[in-house]
């Protein structure tokens, strides 16, 4: 089943590119409004940076220092639009409620690849119109220059691409759970809260208690924010990318398996 589907992906590359570009084009209609939203996101980032600045007045901030923590928060806040703020369950819960899911499953395209392509377009848009403006606003507001003169950005962006794929996989699994619960928004919010903690959004992972660090490293979350940020700050080993790759492979297999199981569970809602 899985290998047959894998073959199917290869034959539909143009379709997936079209789906991604349509999702991108749909969003670009609202870019003016979204650019305004970036201000709110930057305010949040500035607030978190202020907390570290306040703490830095009384305490040494370890290997990062105050400037390092400001750089850290700037990068994680901007990256949230790629690795965390994805569509709730990739839109599956809504399809389950309306019954659209039965039609989606009948399409001659694998559901995971179909939805992943659409979400990839969405994330590409968010990266260009949200992550980059938030990053620039925060650099300006905090009076910073890109870490390491920007030399680490290519590697960090590569890690962030893996992070985007991981967030698509997790979003898909959350969406699929709606077939059993009809409502998965709580899982979506729960995932975001866990991510804030285990992905190192606000606190670098090495400052977590040991037991929480162990839980974090047994999950894909550190590869979604912490690893790209470490690479950005020039503190991470490029071998971290192997961890991202491994989790991308594992979660892809889980998504394919979950689709296989969910096909036997579809109940059309409404009437």
């Amino acid at each position: 089943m899985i290998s047959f589907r894998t073959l199917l992906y290869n034959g539909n590359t143009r379709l997936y590119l079209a789906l991604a570009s349509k999702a991108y084009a749909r969003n670009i209609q609202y870019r003016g409004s979204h650019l305004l939203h970036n201000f709110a996101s930057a305010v949040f980032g500035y607030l978190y940076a202020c907390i570290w600045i306040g703490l830095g007045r009384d305490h040494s901030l370890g290997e990062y220092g105050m400037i390092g923590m400001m750089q850290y928060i700037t990068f994680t806040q901007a990256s949230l639009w790629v690795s965390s703020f994805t569509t709730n369950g990739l839109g599956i819960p809504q399809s389950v409620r309306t019954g659209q899911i039965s039609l989606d499953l009948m399409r001659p395209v694998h559901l995971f690849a179909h939805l992943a392509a659409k979400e990839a377009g969405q994330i590409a848009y968010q990266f260009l119109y949200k992550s980059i403006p938030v990053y620039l606003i925060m650099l300006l507001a905090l009076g910073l220059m890109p870490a390491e003169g920007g030399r680490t950005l290519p590697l960090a962006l590569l890690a962030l691409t893996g992070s985007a794929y991981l967030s698509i996989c997790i979003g898909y699994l959350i969406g699929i759970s709606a077939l059993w619960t009809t409502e998965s928004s709580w899982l979506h919010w729960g995932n975001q809260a866990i991510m804030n903690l285990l992905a190192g959004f606000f606190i670098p992972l090495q400052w977590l208690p040991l037991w929480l660090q162990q839980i974090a490293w047994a999950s894909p979350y550190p590869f979604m924010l912490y690893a790209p940020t470490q690479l950005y700050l020039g503190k991470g080993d490029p071998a971290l990318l192997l961890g991202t790759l491994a989790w991308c492979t594992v979660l892809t297999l889980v998504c394919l398996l979950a689709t296989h199981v969910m096909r036997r569970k579809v109940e059309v809602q409404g009437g």
Partner: protein
Amino acid sequence: MTQSTQMPNRTNRAIRRYIKLYLLLIRTSIRSRMQYRFNFALGSILAALIQLSEFLMVAIVLAKFGAVQGWSVYEIGYLFAVMTFSKTLYRTFGDEVHHLESYLVEGELDQLLTKPLPVLLSLMPRSFRLMLGEVIQGTAIMIWAFGGMLGSGQITWWAIPQTVFAILTGAVVLFAIGLATATCGFWTTRISMLQNMTEDAAQTAARYPLTLYPNWMGGLLLTAIPVGLVNYLPALYILRGELGIWVFPLLAAAACLALLLALRFWTFGMSKYQSTGS
């Protein structure tokens, strides 16, 4: 019976009738939620976990660095729990005010305008939100914080009624901020960005002592977006013995003033409402 005694009686009857109707609508709202018991239970558990993970972030910072600007881990826990309770109260009764954007975008507010009640009074009972997860988490952190501070003799049992008062006035302040923010939607239609700043970001900021922030931001959080009145200001007196007993009448007056201003702004905004429906 004179005309002057008839007027208050009529007002009392109208208020009693409205409260009866409000309770009926709340019962209906709870019953509709209970049709999906599994979702309700799962939502409550996950809400408690989300809240816990948010507190863990604060607690980890404290565990790593000790006191924050002289505030102990119990005091910060107290700030967090008071904010959680006040927010829970506000969102339990006023959740639909927070979600006014969907009414404006879909044009559903028009339906409410046809009802024989003020729009705000017919809007609020449409969703009575049971926030069990937040109550569990807030209670657990409050008991832990109180236990620590009572044990060390920092506070006495008097702190409990004082805290209940602070939570109630705090809920009114948060409701007023939420209502004023929602009212901006009568001009802008979309309000989520504004809510991110005046509600989400401001409430997150107030989980830490306001002395942590630059002076201008601390001032903003005590005046223009007065979330500091919810937990920080009462904590200064209840936990640290600073300021004076006058904090409580000040909180009550500030909550009343905030509510009055928000209601007047709402009435003004309603007069400018233009339907977006086709």
